[in-house]
């Protein structure tokens, strides 16, 4: 798929969060503000993970014939990252052990370096989009009148579900005609 096609796919047609259902947990649990800044960490981690995945695969696994260990290798990278001295940037753990980040790393399994990078960036953009829109909608929710059982996360899930439904408007037909 062309670069444009990849970008459109991960951002709209099959949005990382709303279509592929990766990274739902963290977005639903995002503290109030600022969504942009908080969403940036996982979003930035995605191209990094994609590239790391490519590098590990290309430089280590394939030469050694160990492709099946990709998950372990990728988790090793993540684990090492978590072990880095914090240096004041506390809170790296959660954004990094985010299923969207790992998911992107796994999704780019077969891609070349450029494909991995573009996919990672596109996924990051899609994640950011979902995070910002969701956080906007969540501010808008006034829980008092909603049925009590729905308060909190269930209502967030329904909100995300409606968002996802709206995004279905972006489908493969549209993608094909736009990206050729």
């Amino acid at each position, binding site marked *: 798929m062309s670069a444009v096609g990849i970008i459109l796919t991960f951002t709209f047609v099959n949005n990382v969060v709303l279509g592929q259902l990766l990274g739902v947990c963290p977005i639903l649990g995002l503290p109030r*503000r600022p969504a942009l800044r908080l969403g940036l960490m996982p979003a930035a981690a995605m191209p990094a993970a994609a590239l790391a995945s490519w590098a590990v695969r290309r430089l280590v696994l394939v030469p050694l014939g160990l492709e099946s260990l990709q998950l372990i290798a990728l988790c090793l990278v993540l684990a090492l990252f978590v072990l880095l001295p914090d240096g004041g940037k506390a809170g790296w753990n959660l954004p990094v052990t985010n299923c969207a980040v790992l998911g992107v790393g796994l999704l780019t399994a077969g891609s070349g370096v450029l494909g991995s990078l573009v996919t990672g960036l596109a996924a990051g953009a899609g994640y950011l989009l979902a995070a910002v829109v969701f956080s*906007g909608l969540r501010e808008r929710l006034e829980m008092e009148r909603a049925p009590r059982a729905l308060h909190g996360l269930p*209502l967030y899930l*329904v909100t995300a579900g*409606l968002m996802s439904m*709206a995004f*279905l*408007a972006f489908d493969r037909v549209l993608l094909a*005609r736009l990206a050729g």
Partner: protein
Amino acid sequence: MTAPGPLAPAPHLHAGTTTRGLMLSVAACLLPAGTWGVLVLGPRALAVLAVAVGASLLTELLIAGLAWKSFTLADGSALLTGLLAGFTLPVSVPLFIPAVAAAFAVAVVKMTFGGLGRNWMNPALGGRLFVTFSWPALLAVGAFPGSVSGGGWVRVPPWQLDGSLLGGSGTLGAVSTLLLALGSVYLLARRIVAWEIPLTFAAGYALTVWALAGLPAGEGLFRGDVPAALGSGGFALAAFYMATDPVTSPQGRAGRLAFGAGCGLLSFLLRAYGGRPEGPFLAVALMNLFVPLLNRLGSPTAGKG
């Protein structure tokens, strides 16, 4: 210091109007176009509308009664939601579709969030979307076998349909647009709906159609057929009655202008490139997602801590 909360729940009523009055006014404004639709499409159109309204009233009755022990039908919003949901559907659908659409609209899109004024997506649109993606084959516009026969009193070939009760290009659609616009003049005059939204919606749509509609067909720029595009009942319904829903549209002027423009742009994109005649409905629903963000456009501190 506590963060200023969101503005009081919409709809923000002006002195002298009640919610019921508002809802009934909008419903009344739909009458001319509705009558025209029934005349052209026959009793089936009436059935679709009736089922939708019935399902919507019943759903709200049940939920409000069971969850809040209250009777909310008197505010007229369920009636309006049912009507609008029915209007968005092609007349050829099996009758369970309007029922499900209306029920979903009321139960999921509106009541789940707390009822009138608390939803962020237009309920009728939510219902329309749900059935669109759940039963795509049943809502395909081409489902009409040839032209309407024995239905209404005017023959309508399938290419005139756009996925809504009110049709697309051709007589059905053009007249519907006119009647819907006429109905909304009253709403605009009484300030019940904001004029910025239909304005930029229509302008954005017309502009993109004119400039870009030729592209998918390989005809180049500035070849779009604007009258055909605007003469669509679905577009008019979306632009005058759904995008303007005060609960689910922005409140500042800048926000509204942007909202309408976004709707117009998306309508074009989804229709021309997405091949979806119900494009305008999808467009408005998508823009609903961005309303909280658009609300910050005009005044950066509105609704923000």
